[in-house]
């Protein structure tokens, strides 16, 4: 029962979340009035700015911290964050692009076989948790990589982790276990 090499599996990164600081206080009202493509959430105290080019949504706080979501790769995330900082600079703020960090990466992977979830949970007791009443997927946590995988019975796997490398190695790690509990087509 040799496990296939994962060269054939393509991992699709659907979302990269990153944060950065502008090192200056931002006047949200000014951004809301003069910025393009912005939504001002006054009750919470933040501005949402959407960019078209790398399709990105940024949440801007008045303290100068910005959270950037929607990018499809780490480079794109950095590019989008820089573009955003530039547009804030054009509005007149003394922006310094610091502390850029990728916080979360969400990826999807499809196995070419279906998976038997009860069997999989029994074999991977402490790491896997399956509650069919609450969620139809098995939640498998890899502590060392700080990654969480959601394994569905159709064979599709959703991985979230701190960076793209962790996500890739998480998929590599899980492949043999999932391969064991696959549904054989008769």
């Amino acid at each position, binding site marked *: 029962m040799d496990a296939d090499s994962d060269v054939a599996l393509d991992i699709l990164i659907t979302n990269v979340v990153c944060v950065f600081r502008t090192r200056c206080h931002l006047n949200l009202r000014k951004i809301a009035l003069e910025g393009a493509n912005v939504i001002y959430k006054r009750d919470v105290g933040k501005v949402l700015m959407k960019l078209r080019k790398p399709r990105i949504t940024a949440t801007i706080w008045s303290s100068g911290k910005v959270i950037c979501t929607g990018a499809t790769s780490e480079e794109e995330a950095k590019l989008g964050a820089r573009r955003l900082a530039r547009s804030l600079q054009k509005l007149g703020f003394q922006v310094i692009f610091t502390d850029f960090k990728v916080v979360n990466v969400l990826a999807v992977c499809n196995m070419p076989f279906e998976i038997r979830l009860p069997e999989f949970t029994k074999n991977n007791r402490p790491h896997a*948790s399956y509650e069919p*009443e609450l969620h139809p997927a098995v939640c498998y946590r890899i502590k060392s990589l700080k990654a969480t995988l959601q394994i569905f*019975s159709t064979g599709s796997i959703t991985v979230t982790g701190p960076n793209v490398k962790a996500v890739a190695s998480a998929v590599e790690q899980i492949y043999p276990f999932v391969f064991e509990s696959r549904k054989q087509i008769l």
Partner: protein
Amino acid sequence: MASTSRLDVLPRVTCPNHPDSILVEDYRAGDMICPECGLVVGDRVIDVGSEWRTFSNDKATKDPSRVGDTQNPLLNDGDLTTMIGKGTGAASFDEFGNSKYQNRRTMSSSDRAMMNAFKEITNMADRINLPRNIVDRTNNLFKQVYEQKSLKGRSNDAIASACLYIACRQEGVPRTFKEICAVSRISKKEIGRCFKLILKALETSVDLITTGDFMSRFCSNLGLPKQVQMAATHIARKAVELDLVPGRSPISVAAAAIYMASQASAEKRTQKEIGDIAGVADVTIRQSYRLIYPRAPDLFTADFKFDTPVDKLPQL
């Protein structure tokens, strides 16, 4: 004759002739007696026996030798508090008709929240007629979680409900989240969250639920005879073995199996009725039923008496 069992056995007196001998206490007479020579060494020792005699044919409700409520040492660490009870005579009420000494005195403030939770757990368990052993297990789980303090911010009722759910699972008689929801004021989402947190905090895990766990309860609630229940159990088990219903919750599969079995027998039940009892939407039953319908002949046992033959089963 009672003998002392404390470690600091020699109080302050010893027998002059036998300084090493351990004195025996005679509580009736209030004496300390040396067992070697019989000398009465201590005198006027306080009697710790009953204040008055009790006879076995007296009313069992009032036991005059008891001086407190039943202790719950496993769960409370103590319970040595004094409360002022409600007055009985006329003198206990002041001018306006209010009772004097209104305040019953706060009791065991450190465990007040815990005692409240135990009361809530007993109430919830009562509503679904759970036996005492499950309630005790729930109380123990709650105590462990409470002492750990890792879930301190969560509502106590939510933690209690989740503990009840875990206890039922651990005892081998799982209740669905919806059933626990029905007797608790907490939403299913919150109970589910607390459930996961508690498993993490106590570092335990629970077995997976199977379709068979719920069959007897659902079938009795629907008033189905034993043969239908056995048939439904068999159908559900077979369906899971053949993996006809991947990714479906065992409750939905059980409900669909009950539907199929009841429709094949004389005691037919509608999807709505089954959905009501199981807490499953009737479209969900329909979906699961559609998955098991094609293999219907294989799922029934060989010796099942069909009121409606297999090919005439409703097709939804």
